[in-house]
């Protein structure tokens, strides 16, 4: 068994890359534009990932760990080792990526049928899968950073898939640049760590921190720096702005990258580096996560675009995970990552399915004006699209935190963790408040979305006849992931659907104590969370019921009018609808000033510095020579040696005649000159 998992994971890593290369170069020439190449590669990846997963379950070793590394570059003292780390977290993550990626590939077969850049699309999916797996498998910060950026690029390429639309091109650029802001923090963190420890691998870093090489503020700063990277990728406040815009990409991409896997990379990173996060850094993490969870949820309430609702919901859920890491229950964060990947991907597929049929219906009516993603144009699709409806409902129940569904378990663990944290540190009571508040709102807006889309009367009755269930390539992933939203899968081998005690997950992924001196031990955190568990469960069921109930009253039974309440909320409604004017303010106070600064600098550089200062030297020299020339002419020449000048003038006039341009004249002068010289010489 030695390192067989590493070998498997190498295959998992490089197969999608191979598919990418083949698709880029030959995609268009292959039959069916080569989609079978990508599907084949990703299917093998999935099989291997399942094999690894099964292997893990058979082994059932909580401390399983394999590592392999090689020297990438070596200059003597400075060298970089890259390598792969496979442990239980890696294996689960690989499976998630492979599973969602496969589903996306299959789903896209029909969703993007006939697209002009069909093979290109599959190529980029391959590139994404490769880089995502690169993040998952990294055992060091450098290769993680590299994959990190590559993920950013594949996201850029896929969001910009329909680049003819300016909004898509803008969104792609925005995503990349916003991520880069985070990446700068990431890189500064790497530099801080390397400077102190002299190595990039996690093992060495953990050892170094445990040994007290890197302490105090520097450690906190390093942790915050790395977390900044996570904030960018996981779309945390205030870098959350790119994710909703990223919905300009094809819906399956949103499901794969902007819901399930890529955005989870930030969470994955914080989980990986959890042991070196100092208490102060963790506090930052917790507050950012908690605030994002609540903040994004409040925006989601008022959105009318079905994908925007899901996007803000994703931001909010990611905030949950970050909150969990910050409060120390990082296994809960990973658990939520896992369950969220399943149900959120499913929700996106569902929305994709709805949008697909809306498109189709609008196309039938030759209507190209109506927005196919606006929920205000939907309603009453339940009978028409039963598979989509039921699978989405399962996922909605999961995300709302209803017992028996997966989200309940993971969200509960997080809430318990934050509650216990607040019990230990009463001054941070806000953290659980964020959590529970977000839970209530989540339940509300998710059901609002379901009701507006599937229930009630059709808002555009003329379309309803053309709304059909999606083909089986699209329905398959829906059913599969809908099933995976049920709690039972995560509590095995026990069948108690409301507790994860002793399940495969809690056994295999167990918390470790941070290596930072002075942190809580893993045991203490676990104990605390366990104590808070029942209380948290009670409150969370309560708030979920509250949210769902409110949604039922407002959007299903129409007892409370949303419009009236929206008006009553006044500016709050406005802010929420306009996403708190973040984009506008960033534009006004960040982008435009930067551009203006750039223009100014360029102007200074070119029009001022170069034109006046540098060319000024030339002008000064020119001017000086002219002044000296004038002086020469007016004072010395005209005034002092006027007579001599006149003689010279006449002489010059005489000489001008001599200048005939005829060779023979010149020869004559030369000879005459020689004669004169000879005569002079002879005296």
């Amino acid at each position, binding site marked *: 068994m030695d390192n067989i998992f590493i070998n498997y994971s190498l295959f998992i890593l490089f197969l999608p890359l191979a598919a990418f290369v083949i698709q880029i170069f030959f995609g268009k020439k292959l039959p069916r534009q080569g989609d079978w190449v990508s599907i084949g590669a990703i299917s093998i990846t999935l099989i291997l990932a399942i094999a690894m997963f099964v292997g893990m379950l058979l082994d059932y070793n909580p401390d399983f760990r394999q590592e392999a590394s090689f020297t990438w570059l070596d200059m003597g003292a400075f060298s970089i080792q890259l390598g792969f780390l496979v442990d239980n977290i890696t294996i689960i993550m690989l499976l998630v990526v492979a599973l969602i990626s496969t589903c996306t590939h299959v789903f896209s077969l029909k969703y993007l049928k006939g697209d002009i850049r069909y093979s290109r699309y599959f190529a980029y999916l391959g590139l994404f899968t490769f880089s995502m797996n690169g993040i998952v498998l990294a055992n060091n910060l450098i290769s993680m950073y590299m994959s990190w950026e590559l993920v950013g690029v594949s996201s850029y390429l896929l969001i910009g898939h329909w680049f003819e639309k300016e909004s898509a091109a803008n969104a792609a650029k925005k995503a990349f640049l916003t991520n880069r802001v985070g990446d700068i923090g990431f890189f500064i963190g790497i530099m801080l760590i390397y400077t102190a420890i002299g190595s990039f691998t996690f093992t060495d870093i953990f050892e170094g921190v445990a040994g007290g090489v890197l302490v105090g503020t520097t450690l906190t700063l390093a942790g915050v720096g790395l977390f900044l990277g996570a904030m960018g990728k996981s779309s945390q406040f205030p870098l959350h702005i790119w994710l909703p815009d990223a919905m300009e990409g094809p819906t399956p991409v949103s499901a794969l990258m902007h819901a399930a896997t890529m955005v989870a990379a930030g969470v994955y990173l914080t989980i990986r580096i959890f042991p070196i996060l100092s208490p102060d850094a963790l506090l930052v993490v917790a507050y950012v996560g908690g605030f994002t969870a609540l903040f994004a949820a409040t925006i989601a309430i008022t959105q009318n675009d079905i994908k925007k609702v899901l996007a803000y919901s994703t931001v909010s859920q990611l905030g949950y995970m970050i909150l969990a890491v910050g409060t120390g229950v990082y296994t809960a964060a990973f658990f939520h990552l896992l369950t969220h990947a399943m149900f959120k991907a499913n929700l996106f597929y569902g929305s994709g399915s709805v949008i697909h049929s809306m498109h189709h219906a609008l196309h039938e009516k030759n209507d190209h004006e109506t927005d196919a993603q606006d929920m205000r144009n939907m309603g009453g699709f339940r009978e028409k699209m039963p598979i989509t409806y039921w699978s989405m409902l399962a996922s909605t129940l999961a995300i709302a935190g209803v017992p028996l569904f997966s989200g309940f378990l993971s969200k509960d663990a997080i809430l318990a963790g934050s509650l216990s944290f607040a019990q230990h540190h009463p001054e941070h009571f806000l953290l659980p408040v964020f959590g529970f508040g977000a839970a209530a709102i989540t339940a509300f807006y998710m059901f609002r979305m379901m009701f507006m889309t599937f229930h009630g009367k059709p808002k555009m009755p003329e379309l309803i006849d053309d709304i059909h269930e999606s083909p089986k390539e699209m329905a398959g992933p829906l059913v599969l992931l809908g099933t995976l939203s049920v709690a039972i899968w995560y509590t095995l081998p026990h069948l108690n659907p409301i507790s994860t005690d002793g399940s495969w997950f809690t056994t295999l992924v167990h918390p470790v104590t941070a290596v930072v001196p002075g942190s809580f031990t893993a045991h203490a955190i676990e104990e605390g969370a366990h104590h808070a568990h029942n209380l948290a469960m009670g409150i969370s069921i309560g708030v979920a019921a509250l949210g769902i109930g409110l949604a039922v009253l407002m959007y299903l039974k129409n007892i409370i009018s949303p419009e009236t309440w929206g008006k009553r909320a006044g500016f709050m409604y406005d802010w929420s609808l306009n996403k708190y004017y973040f984009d506008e303010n960033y534009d006004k106070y960040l982008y435009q000033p930067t551009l203006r600064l750039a223009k100014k600098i360029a102007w200074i550089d070119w029009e001022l510095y170069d034109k006046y200062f540098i060319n000024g030297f030339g002008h000064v020299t020119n001017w000086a020579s002219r002044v000296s020339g004038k002086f020469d002419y007016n004072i010395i020449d005209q005034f002092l040696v006027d007579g001599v000048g006149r003689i010279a003038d006449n002489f010059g006039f005489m000489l001008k005649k001599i200048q005939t341009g005829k060779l*023979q*004249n010149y020869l*004559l002068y030369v*000879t*005459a000159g*020689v*004669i004169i010289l*000879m*005569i002079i010489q*002879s005296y």
Partner: protein
Amino acid sequence: MTEFTFWFIITLTILSAGMVVLSNQLIYSAMALLSTLFGVAGIYVFLWADFIAGVQVLVYIGGILILIIFGIMLTNRISSVRLSQTNVQQGVGGAVAIWLCILMSLVISKTPWFQADASEPVGTVAEVGTLLLTKYLLPFEAISLLLLGALIGAAVLSRKEN
């Protein structure tokens, strides 16, 4: 007899040289040049330079002069034979030339030239040949390259455009 021949040759040389530059007919000038060159060859003989004299006859008369005559023929239409030519600035030029001549003669006569006695060699060819291929090998090769270059250059230049 030798004395007479010597002065005859001198006179011939000078007179025909004058004709070269004074004649109005170009073709006469060329003919006068012929006799000047012969005269110079004769002078070489008196200076014990028999090989140079031979070369003078062969190259100058056999080559250059023929070339010049060709040049004259090619640049004047035969049908309207106007082989005459005019001079410019003759007055000043003449004065300058005469002055030049006078001054040079003064210089020549006033300068105490270095002289050394020597007996007449049997033949100069062997000596010249040895020198050319030993001491003066490099100039020899260089001048041969120059000659080649001039040949090609002349051919390229006088070729008709396209």
